[in-house]
């Protein structure tokens, strides 16, 4: 190696020099070289299409007519005048908020149970997480059977207990309802809770485990009961995590496509239809691309306020380290 470097001007020397300058270039700009692929990918696959959708919502795009005409806000006034769409907005808000509230209570309670130092907590924690990893298509298929008129064990149980006389169709009942609160919608929310609460358990449990044990010991000495400890110590200390999880889950559930589409495809008569499913139907069943784009832009703007809060809270943490 030394000999060749003495021998000036050989190709080998140029080669090592190139290697050296390459490695110093890599060393200098490594932070950029490592982050750029992700930024480019996100821009190409997520941001650029989003901007195109926003642009498309100002145009009238028809399948057979190649000419696109600029229509301004006409698409938006058209969708907002449509009473069906207003109902779907109501459905989406009810669906996401009801799922969120029920899941939060269930997940807080489950995490509290799993946080106690009793036998089997690892096993139960694993079992509780199983719904979350279930493929949504399978979730839809199984719950369709659980809710069906002819094969439902839930109906079967209610009949054995004498609560109902003949099997009911949970997802097909259109008789009873109050606004977005209908039997199919409640059934859908239960399925969605089933699918989403495990993720929240993991978040809450991680937060609870970081609460120092001596706080509880001190509280016990002061005569604070178990319930009091939960409200006075656990809850305030895990609140930052709860807030971030709730914001993230609200946005995810507001944008949720799988639960409604794979269980009921939005039916019966739009009772369980949510905005994400509506966009999909308008775009790929009715081929109304500009209407679909406008609805998705509307979705984006409704979820914008919680999104900003979420980003703000995360950024405060992320920039620190």
């Amino acid at each position, binding site marked *: 190696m030394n000999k060749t470097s003495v021998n000036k001007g050989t190709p080998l020397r140029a080669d090592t020099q190139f290697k050296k300058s390459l490695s110093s270039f890599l060393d200098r700009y490594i932070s950029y070289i490592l982050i750029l692929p992700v930024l480019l990918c996100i821009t190409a696959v997520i*941001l650029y*299409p*989003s901007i195109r*959708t926003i642009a498309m919502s100002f145009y009238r795009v028809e399948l057979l007519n190649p000419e696109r005409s600029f229509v301004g806000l006409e698409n938006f006034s058209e969708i907002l005048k449509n009473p069906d769409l207003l109902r779907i907005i109501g459905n989406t808000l009810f669906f996401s908020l009801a799922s969120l509230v029920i899941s939060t209570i269930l997940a807080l309670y489950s995490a509290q149970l799993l946080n106690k130092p009793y036998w089997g907590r690892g096993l139960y924690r694993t079992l509780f997480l199983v719904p979350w990893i279930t493929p949504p*298509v399978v979730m839809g298929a199984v719950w369709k*059977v659980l809710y069906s008129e002819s094969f439902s064990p839930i109906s079967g149980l209610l009949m054995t207990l004498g609560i109902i006389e003949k099997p009911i169709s949970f997802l097909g009942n259109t008789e009873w309802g109050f606004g977005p609160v209908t039997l199919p919608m409640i059934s859908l929310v239960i399925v969605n809770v089933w699918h989403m609460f495990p993720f929240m358990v993991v978040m809450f449990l991680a*937060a609870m485990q970081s609460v120092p044990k001596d706080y509880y010991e001190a509280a016990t000495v002061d005569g604070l009961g178990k319930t009091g400890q939960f409200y006075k110590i656990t809850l305030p200390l895990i609140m930052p995590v709860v807030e971030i999880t709730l914001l993230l889950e609200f946005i995810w559930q507001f944008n949720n496509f799988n639960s409604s589409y794979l269980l009921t495809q939005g039916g019966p008569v739009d009772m369980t239809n949510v905005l994400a499913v509506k966009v999909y139907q308008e775009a790929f069943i009715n081929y109304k691309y500009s209407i679909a784009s406008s609805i*998705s832009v509307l979705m984006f703007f409704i979820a914008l306020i919680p999104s900003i809060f979420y980003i703000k809270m995360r950024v405060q943490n992320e920039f620190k380290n």
Partner: protein
Amino acid sequence: MKTKNKWELAFHYFMLNCIAVFALFPYYWMFVTSVKPAEQILSIPPAWWPSRLELKNYLTVFNIMPLLGYLKNSMIYSVLTTVICVMLACFAGYSLSRFRYKIRNTSIVLILSSQLIPGVMTIIPFYFMMLDLKLNNSAVGIVMAYSIWAVPFCTLMLKNYFSSTLPVEIEESAMIDGCSKIKILFKIALPISIPGIIATAIFAFILAWNEYMWASIILSDSKFKPLSVGIHDFIGQFGVTPSVSLFMAASVITTLPILIIFGFLQKHLISGLADGAIKG
């Protein structure tokens, strides 16, 4: 005091079991229905356990739909997605956790916001982009969609993993020994971060395996369909009819690979999830 503790313990396990029943009953029903003999399917109220195990359903389901092809496609898409996503996320996560530079904060905001954009908002232009590039009905298009939608969460997961568990001191001493930064990444940082990388990989794999919406739009040719779309088409064809035991068998087959992976690696995944969603 002692009796109180006993009751408390009994109540504790009673509640845990109630939640476990809620979480797992659909799985019980899926399995029981998949092995029920035909004469039991139609009984009202339904039978709670099968009178005999009808394993023939599992063979039938392979004959009436191209399940092996679907399985193969799902496997290809999920593995490719996992590899690409983990690679991108490792690099970006490492960069964000170790270096301070001009566009770092902008990058974090960009990654966080892309996590919140509704998928349906980008699907129409993305579909047309894929049509123009002739990448619909190909592994490339779908893997692109899957891996890049999974990247934001995975990047944050790994960024927080690197910041909290990877000791800076080791890297600093390697740097004093004259190791280049890129060498430190590949020879030191990544090898000792295997648990975090495994967590990210399982997350990406599950996401890709379970996904339905993108595949249903981008892959219209049944040769390219993954399990999720294949099964959904199959159910749509029959509806909730006496063939219900067949599509429960298909559901069991779809879920099994995910359950196996999860069973072996759940510890890693559980500790990684909190990193991705909340930690700073």
